[in-house]
């Protein structure tokens, strides 16, 4: 199956499954600044995924922020700084905690689950979960459709590539970019999973074929939004930077207080809200 057909099939599966969102108020996380909810949505499978939603107090519409899931069992609740400024939706994909009824993702294990067949690769469903989350967020009346951002790793880029309407994309900690080369650099997880999987007898050619569907470079040309790529090594990321139509690059200093503030301010400016540091002074 070629690249476009693979992803069109995901869209078609989503199109025939109603999201049926269910929202529950979270009093402990509801303040003068924002109202918080837990959300459940149906994605492909069908599978019920989870998310934390927060809507600022006051009259909208508000800028919105979708946070795609990190690689790990737990996703954070929207930070109070973000809750006060954005409609925030933090997705928990299938298999992560709070979305693990019926399937609990393994760490290590998730990155290579079903990887020997692109059609069964777990990240096909995870990507669908992110696309469903984008559809949900953009459907909310409180969201200003001209100011919708997505933040995260490769899943954020993929989401922005496949769903129109994002005005800003903030990328960091890429997982799939040049993964077949990066896996050779250390025994650090999660990429070490690829080495484990190949040691167990799988074919590098087959694994590479599956990963190619998730290669951010192949998705990049479809991202029309302003994009910030926060990376350690711009040279290593040159292919991706070159493929993104509207990319700017932030070279991480690893003074993470400084880095966090820069990334916050970049999105705040595009969204028309004040920058906020998480470190209170």
């Amino acid at each position, binding site marked *: 199956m070629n690249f476009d057909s693979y992803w069109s099939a995901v869209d078609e599966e989503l199109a025939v499954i109603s999201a049926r969102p269910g929202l529950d108020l979270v*009093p*402990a*996380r509801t*303040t003068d600044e924002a109202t918080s909810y837990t959300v459940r949505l149906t994605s492909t499978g069908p599978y019920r995924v989870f998310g934390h939603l927060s809507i600022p107090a006051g009259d909208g519409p508000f800028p919105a922020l979708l946070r795609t899931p990190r690689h*790990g*069992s*737990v996703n*954070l*609740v929207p*930070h*109070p*700084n973000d809750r006060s400024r954005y409609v925030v939706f933090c997705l928990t994909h299938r298999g992560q*905690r*709070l979305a693990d009824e019926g399937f*609990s993702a*393994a*760490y*290590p294990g998730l990155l290579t689950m079903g990887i020997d067949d692109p059609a069964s690769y777990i990240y096909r469903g995870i990507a669908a979960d992110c696309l469903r989350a984008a559809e949900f967020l953009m459907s909310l009346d409180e969201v200003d459709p001209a100011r919708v951002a997505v933040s995260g790793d490769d899943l954020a880029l993929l989401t922005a590539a496949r769903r129109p309407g994002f005005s800003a994309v903030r990328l960091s900690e890429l997982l799939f970019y040049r993964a077949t080369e990066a896996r050779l650099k*250390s*025994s*650090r*997880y999660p990429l*070490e999973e690829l*080495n*484990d999987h190949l*040691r*167990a007898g799988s074919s590098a050619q087959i694994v590479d074929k599956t990963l190619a569907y998730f290669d951010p470079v192949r998705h990049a040309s479809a991202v029309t939004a302003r994009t910030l790529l926060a990376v350690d090594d711009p040279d290593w990321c040159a292919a991706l930077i070159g493929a993104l139509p509207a990319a700017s690059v932030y070279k991480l*200093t*690893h*003074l*993470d*207080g*400084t880095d*966090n503030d820069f990334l916050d301010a970049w999105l705040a400016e595009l969204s028309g809200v004040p920058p906020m*540091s*998480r*470190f*209170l*002074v």
Partner: protein
Amino acid sequence: MRDPENAIVEVELPDDFDDFWAAGLADCASYPLDPVLTEMPSLSTDKVIVYDLRYTSYGGLRIAGWYTVPRDRPAPHPALVTIPGYISEPTIPKEWSELGYAALAVAPRGKLRSNDVFNPGYPGLLTHNIIDHNTYGYRGFYLDVVRAVEVLLDRPEVDDLRIGLQGSSQGGGLGISTAALLPDVIRCVAAGAPYLCGIMTAPTLTRSYPYEEINEYLRVHPEDADRVRETVAYYDGLNFAPKVRAPTLLYLGLEDDVCPPETGFALRRVLTCETTLHAYPHCAHHAGLPGVMRIVEDFLAEHLTPGR
């Protein structure tokens, strides 16, 4: 303007603090450790043998871990327990074994593979039964790390005199508590951005999780503030710190919104052991990562002498 180094962070020491933890250790001792190691060839490499580990801990719960041993170096090995952060799962510690350590990455109760019985979720662990120190979720969690050290003491390929602890955030906080509960065993502790120190002060200095869980709990249950304070005093690293005898490396981010630097400096003040502190301006919860890892590796190597 904040002055982290000189900020006052106080925690009341419960009268029965030592008895409380002695009782927890006694409960653990009432169960056979019963460690079961299963070699995992598909996860092992030409340099490192990987085992799935299960053992019995507080309350009789079975706890999981990943245990790795250098393949190409002669035993006995120095050993490390690596302790996970609040939201992270323990990864297979191959990199430590590549440096010459037998390494045990513990998954305390509630972490994946150790959550069949106890599963408070995330968020949730920090406030699980937080109004009762006897049943607070962290009680078993703390003791699961102690029992992980006991697993190492049970291993013939481990040099009992060269066991250290390493972790950041929750891993740093539990490094302090574990070293305090096993002062005759632990030879060194590397603790980054230590969490669970100044537990009631920290939520007043930040809006970030996990401490924000306490703010949320008290938003709904303001009447429980005293009981929360009473409970967490039993678990506060500042109360464990004076009992630590092992040389300790601390590293902090001076703009850490997750574990406020005030609490890290407070820890330093109450540690009476040999302590080295690195405080990094403009750093948040990474506390100097990735560069600080070279300092951590050198510190552990100095005290545990891999390759000796």
